[in-house]
């Protein structure tokens, strides 16, 4: 008898693809936050009186 908890190959592949895309999206978010921080800090640096 097959294990009801065992995923079929197609479902496992789909889950793996989904995880990769989610990881990519999270990475992009981190990069975006980093870039936003740099741009905002850069703006503040130029506005500091010398």
């Amino acid at each position, binding site marked *: 008898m097959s294990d009801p908890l065992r995923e079929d190959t197609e479902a496992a592949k*789909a889950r793996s693809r989904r995880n990769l895309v989610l990881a990519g999206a999270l990475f992009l*978010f981190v990069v975006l936050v980093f870039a*936003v921080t740099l741009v*905002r800090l850069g*703006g503040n640096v130029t506005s500091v009186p010398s």
Partner: protein
Amino acid sequence: MDVTTTAQSLQATTEVEPARAARWSDYALLLKPRVMSLVVFTALTGLVCAGKPLNPFLGAVAVLCIAVGAGASGALNMWFDADIDAKMRRTRARPVPAGRVQGADALTLGVVLSLFSVMLMGMAMNWLAAGLLAFTIAFYAIVYTMWLKRFTPQNIVIGGAAGALPPVIGWAAASGSTPLNAWLLFLIVFLWTPPHSWALALYTSGDYAKAGVPMMPVAKGAASTRRQIMLYSLLFVPAALAPAFTGLGGPIYLTVAAAGGAVFLLLAARLALSKAGDGDDPRGEGLYGVKADARPARNLFAVSILYLFALFAALLAERIVGLAPLELIR
């Protein structure tokens, strides 16, 4: 939400179209890309009209946040409305009622995207814009979707505030404030929503009645709806002209607003005098097909989209080419 009803709806839909595994396009559909494009366009106009110098990268991030926030509201709406979506021809192929995406997945996507968009907006721009974005998402998902839509024929009038806020968010993102001109853009979209939505409802009212959604034609009848469309059109067109008098719109805007407004009023008057929505089933062949007597409703619906687009495009074009606003009232 009534889980039993949803399950029955899903089962009924499955009989029409067998569910297949979710694709990325299904998740993209949850974000209502067509609504999102209009939101992005009006928000971008607000951002540009604020007239403040803005880092282009931060401007792009602000627009991205508003787009993602709008998408998040769409996903939350599709999660909650799966039961009524399954009963309407226009919406029954959506990913959740068609069984291609689980309701819980749509909810998760909506919540996660809401949090990310609001957080990023706050960090990248300012917390006024982030607060307005959070309010808009909550208003659309909770006040409109969960409450107004199912309980009052004024659903799209009050709920229309959510769709009208993006230009104000854009303005707040660029400038950190929301002056009267920003709220004038809000007013234009707010007053545009009832004639636009009710024109569509006049020839899809059978669907709304089947789903138990008290849209104006279902609750008050077609004649009352046509009268109210005329009334809102009479309020909307002067509001659309107003930016030419408040230092927001220039000569291009005034021309577009006046010419388009005249066409809009003409079509609203034709609709008011027509019998659109009176028949048992005004629909014709195809998803958006209508029978001859309902065509005035379809014409106003189509022109309403074009007119709103033209108004905001004119404002955007004037700012891009550097055309000075008219300021007819000083």
